[in-house]
C-alpha cells in the first residue's frame, strides 16, 4: 500500500483493520476480574456478554470516571454496574468510514465487532484506523526517528 490515500480507501470493510480478539467477561463477573484482564493483557476495553451475546462494554475510561478514587470494592462490585450498556457495535463488513463516523459521533475509542448472532468476534479502535492511515505513509512516517533531530537544542532544554 504505497499510493496516495483517498477518501474511497475508507470504504474498505473494517475487517481489513485486522480487528483484535476481544476480552470477554460474563455479566455478573466481579469488577476485579475485568480490571485484572485489562491490566494483564494491556487492553483498553473488555466486552461484557450474557450467554455469549454482547450486552455491554467496560473501558479504562469507565474505570477512571466511575471507579478510581471512589469506595468501590472490586471483589464485590460486578461489571454490570460500571459498563456502558448497548454499546455501538459493527460487523466486519461495515466500512472504515462508518467506524470513523461512529468514533467521532459517539466520542468513543473502541467498537466491538459482532457476528450475526451478536456474539463479539473482535473490536476495532481509533488506533486501528490511525495504523491504517499510517500504512499509506510508511516512508514518510515509520522511517522517522522517534524525535526530530534538533542539534544543540536537547542539551539546552536539559532533556
Amino acid at each position, binding site marked *: 500500500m504505497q499510493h*496516495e*490515500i*483517498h*477518501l474511497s480507501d*475508507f470504504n474498505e470493510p473494517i475487517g481489513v483493520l485486522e480487528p483484535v480478539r476481544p476480552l470477554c467477561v460474563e455479566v455478573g463477573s466481579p469488577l*476485579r476480574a475485568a*480490571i*485484572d484482564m*485489562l*491490566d494483564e493483557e*494491556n487492553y*483498553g476495553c473488555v466486552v461484557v456478554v450474557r450467554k455469549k451475546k454482547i450486552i455491554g462494554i467496560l473501558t*479504562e*475510561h469507565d*474505570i*477512571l*470516571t466511575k*471507579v*478510581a*478514587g471512589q469506595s468501590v470494592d*472490586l471483589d464485590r462490585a460486578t461489571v454490570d454496574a460500571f459498563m456502558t450498556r448497548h454499546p455501538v457495535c459493527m460487523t466486519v463488513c461495515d466500512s472504515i*468510514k462508518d467506524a*470513523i*463516523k461512529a*468514533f*467521532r459521533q459517539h466520542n468513543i*475509542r473502541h467498537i466491538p465487532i459482532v457476528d450475526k448472532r451478536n456474539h463479539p468476534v473482535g473490536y476495532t479502535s*481509533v*488506533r486501528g*484506523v*490511525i*495504523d491504517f*492511515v*499510517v500504512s*499509506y*505513509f510508511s516512508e*514518510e*512516517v*515509520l522511517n*522517522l526517528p*522517534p*524525535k*526530530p533531530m*534538533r542539534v544543540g*537544542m536537547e542539551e*539546552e*532544554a*536539559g*532533556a
Partner: protein
Amino acid sequence: MNASLVTTNIGSLNPKKPVCMRPSAPVLDAIKVMRDTKNGCVLVTEDERLVGVVTERDILRKVVSKDVDPATTQLRSIMSMDPNYLYDDDSVAFALNQMSAGGSRKVTITDTDGRPTGVVTIEDILDYVIEKLNF
C-alpha cells in the same frame, strides 16, 4: 494528503491546553482533574518542565488494580518518566510515528525550554485526516 501530512505543523491542530501537576501531588487530585476536565492524561512538571505523564492506563494498572490508595500516593510513584514530546513546528508525521510505532495515544507539545504548551491526541489526528479528506 500524503504531502500535507509531512509538512503540516502539529501546532496547527490546536493542541489542547495541558493539565500540569507537581510530582508530589496526590494521585487522587489527578484522578479528579482528569475526570472533571475530560483529559486523558495529566502532565507532571517540575520547575515548569515536563518530567512525566500519568494516563488513564497508569491509573488503572498502577492504582486501581493494585489497590493503591490514591489519596496517599504521589504522582511521582506512578508517572511514566521521559515522555515523548514534540515542538509545535514539528510535522504531524512525527506525532503519527510516536502514536503508531510508539504506541502512545497522546503527544505532549513543549516549548524549547521543555515547558508543556499543549497535548495532541490520537482523536485530533483522526479529525485532521477527516478534514483533509473531506469526509
